[in-house]
């Protein structure tokens, strides 16, 4: 029998994840990830999200380096952004993905100033979503530790 605490945690969790969707941090793909998690693969979401963090940080470093060069190799920059767009899309990090789309357009135009601006933006968006996801995962772990189950969100929009 669940106690009041678990109930409260679950409500808090649902409110929080709903807000992430409403604010556009996450999209439906994140729900797909959650659906792929089950008793046999209980850490699937955490594993994929951790990979995303590692991948993104590496790519952002590579991008910073590439755009810092005297002679910028836009093909290389584009390749990095393409990868980041792919991984953010795969986990449902919508804002990061959208930043990457704009970023790629500027790569094509070889517009250095806009590219640098995009880099700042994508770094910011990445930081935001990283914090949000870490908070979300922490809430999940609290619920599980208290003996409750992670509620599934009704995706009605």
């Amino acid at each position: 029998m669940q106690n009041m605490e678990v109930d409260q945690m679950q409500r808090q969790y649902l409110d929080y994840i709903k807000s992430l969707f409403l604010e556009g941090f996450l999209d439906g793909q994140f729900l797909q990830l959650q659906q792929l998690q089950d008793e046999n693969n209980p850490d699937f979401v955490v594993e994929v999200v951790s990979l995303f963090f590692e991948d993104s940080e590496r790519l952002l470093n590579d991008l910073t380096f590439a755009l810092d060069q005297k002679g910028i190799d836009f093909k290389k920059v584009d390749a990095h952004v393409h990868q980041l767009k792919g991984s953010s899309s795969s986990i449902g990090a919508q804002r990061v993905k959208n930043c990457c789309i704009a970023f790629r357009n500027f790569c094509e135009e070889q517009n250095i100033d806009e590219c640098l601006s995009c880099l700042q933006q994508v770094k910011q968006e990445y930081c935001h979503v990283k914090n949000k996801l870490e908070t979300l995962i922490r809430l999940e772990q609290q619920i599980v530790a208290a003996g409750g189950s992670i509620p599934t969100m009704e995706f009605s929009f």
Partner: protein
Amino acid sequence: MALETRFHVLAVDDSLIDRMLIERLLKTSSFNVTTVDSATKALKFLGLVEDELRTFETSVASEIHQDVDVNLIITDYCMPGMTGYDLLRKIKESKSLKNIPVVIMSSENVPSRINRCLEEGAEEFFLKPVQQADVNKLKPHLMKSRNKGDQDQEQEQDQHFHNKRKDMEAISSPNKTRLKCSS
């Protein structure tokens, strides 16, 4: 009669996240899954290894062919080195592999790209991120291949039986000219 074994899918993608995703999606649908991170590794796994002098000759392949049964190949389009399209072509050019259904995945919705792949023999083209609904489309292609394989086997057996009967007729009526069996 032997139980239907699980279908074995080979998934090719240079992105680790996407490999994890496709593996989970496929396993949820009860497929056996092998993932590799490049087209070259895929060809190696399938038994097509590059000869120094020739490139990916099937005659070389038949000697090195592993005892692996792959029922479907699903591959990313954009990969460094050999692309998914190149992989598709190599598979369709190979005598031993051309009947394996191939599915292409891509994060980019480019109609000319999609058409090229379908014309080259890809069964399906999935837009990334791949969904469960996409993976659900795979079973019919696999059942078709399996049935075709069974049909081919049946035809061979029928032919063999037919030949055997002719031989027996020839033996029981020695005056008749012995019928030549078709090879």
